[in-house]
């Protein structure tokens, strides 16, 4: 058996020639700041001369759009939803992730099988069944788990547009309002992640701190994984200008657009 996979190989995929790229998974609950960190990571790696590809849940060509549409209708049973996500994941693994790793890319994935398993487990699906289902997943070279306390999570979620139907777990919880459901659901998810941390070898990153402080940690871990891949050695840990996050700002920014607007505003301030 090919040890790059957790339990069973992907049928028809031969990894004997090896994968020259690296697979890095960013995990963590909703609103923890994964996408911000992904963007900074990508900018930094690319400026260091590495080819980067990023992917995330429901971004697959086969099933991605249809999962989104089915979620809007709230019509999916929990096992059906779980398997639909697994289909999307299998599609991305085989058609995007593995080919790009063969080609020597650094593949960043915003969530991996762990989020999918956690979401399904809190909804009552059997952990053994889930582990076996995702037995075909490739073991990442690095799993960064952005860990945040629920107390720090709440304001971030509220700033980012409030509570989402699925992210609050209201589809399976009997809470009368989204806030109570959210607290219960996220607590349950955090417990699932904690269970998985040892088993799957998560590298835990404290995401209760500023974006920059969190990123510094991430950068140090990623540096070790991509060592030797960069054309210029040693790798610089300086961020390209657009991705600099002002130290003074404690609020998390959720999109590059926000940061660009912020940067432009500060430039105008200086000009005056």
């Amino acid at each position, binding site marked *: 058996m090919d040890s790059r996979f957790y*339990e*069973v*190989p*992907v*049928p*028809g995929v031969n990894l004997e020639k090896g994968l020259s790229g690296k697979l890095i998974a960013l995990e963590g609950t909703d609103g923890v700041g994964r996408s911000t960190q992904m963007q900074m990571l990508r900018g930094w790696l690319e400026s260091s001369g590495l080819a980067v590809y990023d992917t995330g849940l429901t971004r697959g*060509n*086969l*099933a991605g759009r*249809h999962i989104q549409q*089915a979620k809007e209708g709230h*019509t*999916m*049973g929990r*096992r*059906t939803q*779980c*398997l*639909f996500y*697994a*289909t999307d994941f*299998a*599609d991305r*693994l*085989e*058609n995007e992730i593995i080919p790009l790793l063969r080609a020597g890319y650094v593949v960043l994935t915003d969530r991996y099988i762990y989020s999918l398993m956690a979401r399904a487990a809190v909804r009552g699906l059997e952990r053994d*069944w889930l582990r*076996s*289902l995702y*037995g*075909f997943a490739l073991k990442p070279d690095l799993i960064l788990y952005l860990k945040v306390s629920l107390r720090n999570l709440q304001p971030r979620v509220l700033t980012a547009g409030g509570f989402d139907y699925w992210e609050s777990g209201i589809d399976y919880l009997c809470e009368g309002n989204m806030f109570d459901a959210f607290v219960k659901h996220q607590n349950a998810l955090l417990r699932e992640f904690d269970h998985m941390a040892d088993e799957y070898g998560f590298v835990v990153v404290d995401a209760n701190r500023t974006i920059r402080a969190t990123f510094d940690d991430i950068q140090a871990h990623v540096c070790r994984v991509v060592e030797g891949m960069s054309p210029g050695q040693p790798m610089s840990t300086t961020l390209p200008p657009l991705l600099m996050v002002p130290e003074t700002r404690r609020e998390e920014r959720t999109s590059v657009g926000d940061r660009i607007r912020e940067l432009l505003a500060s430039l105008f301030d200086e000009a005056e």
Partner: protein
Amino acid sequence: MQPSDQYQGKLFVVEGIDGSGKSTQIDLIHKWLLARGYSAFFSEWNSSPLVKRTTRRGKTRRLLNPLAFSLIHATDFADRTERNIIPPLKAGAAVLADRYAYTAFARDVARGCDPEWVRRLYGFAVRPTVAFYFRVPLAVALDRILVGRPEIKWYEAGMDLRLSDDVYESFKLFQTRILEQYDRIAEEFGLTVIDGTLPIAVQQQKMREIVEPFLEGLLRRPQDSAVLCRTETDG
């Protein structure tokens, strides 16, 4: 698989390669049950409206690798289990299925998926009360299917496995692999084997004899629902 005796209803499924005659037989059982006054729910492989577009997209654009092929069918099966199979079983009705998890065990493994992995994947399936397996020699099934050289679809022919460039040749090779798997499965899961080369009426008689003892106490149709018969049959 999950035990079926936790439900009052009964689940009857038919399995076999293309051209084994299973769909004809389950359709006749369906009509027989309705005529006898029973409520019978019919669920067909690959029919969930939720994933239909994805399956269609995958098939027409040939995006499905064996793994994704397996998982999209499992998604379809889960949706039908949650929606069309467990609720009527709980209500005490007869549920009929044209193809069941065994189809995945045969096809997905013929496509290279790990046999144990596929079996665990379908671990949530309700074990049928009776699972009929229509055994026919490959030549008989091919004769029935290939008469008039119909159009055989890409995945039906197993063209994704690159067994042959010729659709008909590929179809034969793929069906051979599936048949091998079915014979193993029939033994492993104790499927009820029906000789698919017998005349249709003889096969039907055997099936009815096997189904009959399970019918007592099953949910009956409302007395005045005769006109609804057709819609239910379609459904």
